[in-house]
């Protein structure tokens, strides 16, 4: 999995300058947030559903080996072929092999973060196989060589006229209108023919049921149904953490996911298939169980709750950081608060050390998470790991210095006094407008309240300690 190539503050700085991104993202996040709030409020048992979702996921992780074996057995009995992949390369190799075996130079794909994570499209392309994205937004991005900025609405940073122009250059030369309905129709016409001809479909899965071997894809457009029913061969790649123990457990997640994700009571289409059904849908099914860093996440008792994630994107929409910077700043297919805790764990903290700091710790993500991932708690945990792994010497020294000052009351008083002297040249009309680096990071955009002339902790009678 690819990690960020630059630190979050650097990437965020650039993204913050993109006015269109800021405005589209602001609108999108606030709209979806309001929709979510409405449909969540409607359910009297929302908190009980969250509790159940969280407990089911904790059970899955604690007994993951058992559930995976059960899943494998059920799938095999249902006529599927099960593959295990330690990393992305092994998973991609399965897809390539299946495509080659059926003489397919194109596969049709359901939108899937897991396949993005393992860079399936690029890997297949290198072997002469085109992986066609069929989700509307993913198709737009693929046609333009762009990448996703939001888990749910990946092309939210693009406007209708840009998309119209893109379609003119690519799939619909005669298109003139930029109405979303017309653009969607163009994609429908373009993809319909490809669906009808497809030999191999590729999907991820939102859930896999250990008990029955059932796979589940939740979607809106119908491209997921097309990819999982029309081609004679289907390969489904599923992260090992996506299991639920029993079929009945889906009753929890099929309530939590749509309401948290799109803010709908239910998404338009949910497909559940159990192996191969004679005369209906693909007659050859391959299921790839993907590790790719997940067992590494599992090792961390605090951090493993990130594997509860059902990819709803509710945390993105409420995050003050994400809703300003957008997904690209996170340099990973998993953006936002969940990305800030998942990416560093999947690829190693040393490869994404700035991500756990990309948060004001406001806690809004935890509040909306349908499976109760305590994201702020994991952020703190990963910050400590980041500091231990790659913490800068200057910061370390500064923190130790501040710790030393706070270690005795007299030192704090002394520091307050010294600070009062040092700030003198900078105070104008009762505020500080400019400070030298590194404190200029504050004063570049904000005034600073100066240190006060006297301090309450120094106003009591008594001797200083020690």
């Amino acid at each position: 999995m690819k990690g960020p190539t630059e630190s979050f503050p650097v990437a965020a700085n650039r993204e913050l300058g993109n006015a269109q991104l800021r405005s589209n993202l602001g609108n999108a996040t606030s709209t979806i947030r309001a929709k979510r709030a409405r449909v969540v409020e409607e359910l009297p048992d929302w908190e009980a559903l969250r509790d159940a979702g969280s407990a089911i996921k904790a059970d899955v992780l604690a007994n993951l080996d058992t559930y995976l074996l059960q899943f494998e057995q059920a799938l095999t009995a249902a006529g599927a072929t099960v593959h295990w992949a330690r990393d992305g390369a092994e998973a991609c190799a399965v897809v390539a092999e299946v495509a080659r075996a059926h003489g397919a130079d194109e596969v049709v794909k359901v939108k899937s973060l897991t396949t993005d994570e393992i860079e399936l499209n690029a890997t297949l392309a290198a072997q002469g196989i085109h992986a066609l994205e069929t989700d509307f937004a993913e198709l737009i991005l693929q046609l333009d060589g762009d990448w996703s900025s939001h888990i749910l609405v990946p092309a939210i940073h693009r406007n209708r006229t840009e998309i119209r122009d893109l379609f003119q250059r690519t799939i619909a030369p005669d298109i003139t209108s930029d109405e979303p309905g017309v653009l969607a129709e163009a994609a429908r016409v373009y993809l319909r023919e490809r669906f009808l001809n497809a030999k191999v479909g590729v999907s991820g899965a939102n859930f896999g049921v250990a008990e029955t071997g059932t796979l589940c894809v939740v979607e809106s457009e119908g491209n997921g149904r097309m990819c999982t029913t029309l081609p004679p061969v289907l390969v489904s790649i599923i992260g090992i953490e996506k299991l639920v123990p029993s079929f009945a457990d889906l009753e929890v997640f099929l309530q939590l996911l749509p309401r948290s994700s799109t803010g709908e009571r239910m998404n338009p289409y949910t497909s559940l298939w159990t192996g191969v059904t004679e005369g209906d849908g693909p007659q050859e099914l391959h299921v790839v169980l993907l590790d790719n860093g997940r067992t590494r996440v599992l090792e961390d008792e605090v951090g493993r709750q990130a594997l509860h994630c059902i990819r709803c994107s509710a945390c993105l929409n409420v995050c003050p950081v994400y809703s300003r910077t957008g997904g690209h700043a996170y340099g990973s297919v998993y953006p936002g608060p969940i990305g800030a805790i998942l990416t560093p764990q999947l690829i190693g903290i040393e490869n994404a050390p700035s991500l756990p700091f990309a948060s004001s710790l406001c806690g809004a993500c935890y509040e909306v998470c349908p499976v109760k991932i305590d994201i702020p708690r994991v952020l703190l945990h990963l910050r400590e790991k980041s500091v231990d792994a790659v913490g800068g010497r200057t910061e370390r020294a500064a923190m130790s210095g501040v710790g030393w000052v706070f270690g005795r009351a007299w030192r704090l008083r002394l520091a307050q006094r010294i600070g009062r002297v040092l700030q003198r040249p900078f105070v104008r009309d009762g505020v500080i407008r400019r400070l030298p680096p590194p404190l200029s990071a504050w004063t570049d955009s904000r005034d600073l309240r100066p240190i006060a002339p006297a301090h309450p902790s120094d106003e009591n009678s008594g001797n200083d300690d020690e």
Partner: protein
Amino acid sequence: MKLGLFSTCVADTMFPDAVRATASVLERLGHEVVVPREQTCCGQMHLNAGYRRDAQPLADRFVATFAGFEAVVCPSSSCVGTIRELYPQLLGIDNQITERVFELSEFLVDQLGVEDLGAAYPHRVTYHPTCHSLRVTKVGDAPLRLLRNVRGLELVELPDATECCGFGGTFSLKNAATSSAILADKCQSIESTGAEVCTALDGSCLLQIGGGLSRGGDRARAVHIAEILASR
């Protein structure tokens, strides 16, 4: 009651009037208030920045300083949140005193059952609920109940009130551009209310909001809630 007042490093250094106001509100209600000289910082910054081990002695120091009080009151919900939630979670401190640390407004309303302090503050005021007060300390509507009983105070609702101000401790420096972008929207919301004063429970957030309002030449000022509640 004999109350310890934890002034917090930020308020002690930059918002001393908020600490004095906290003491005076509590004393007027007949309590004995002590501001121990030995206090420094709860360790929040270190805990939040990934320096847990450096926070340990500060937490131990807090516990030792305040162990003898019936309750500890503090004009900062994020420090209270740190002590009540993070001390047990991250530092293994499961001391009785951590459960008796309260933010001022929740102490007044939930512990003492007082909502009218006889305060007067003839200004148009908007209230920013800080993230820690909403989601960690969970003070609920205690601050609003108190503000509604202040004579002459016109309380105006803040649009998108529950949005973060962008402070986030070291986040405000490490991710200064993002922090400022979040702050800009908060300042705009405050200005849209036409308020003269934006109040909150946390000095740190007020440092951020006040800095933004002042830099933007905005009409509103940032004032700690304790100062409003102590006004006569």
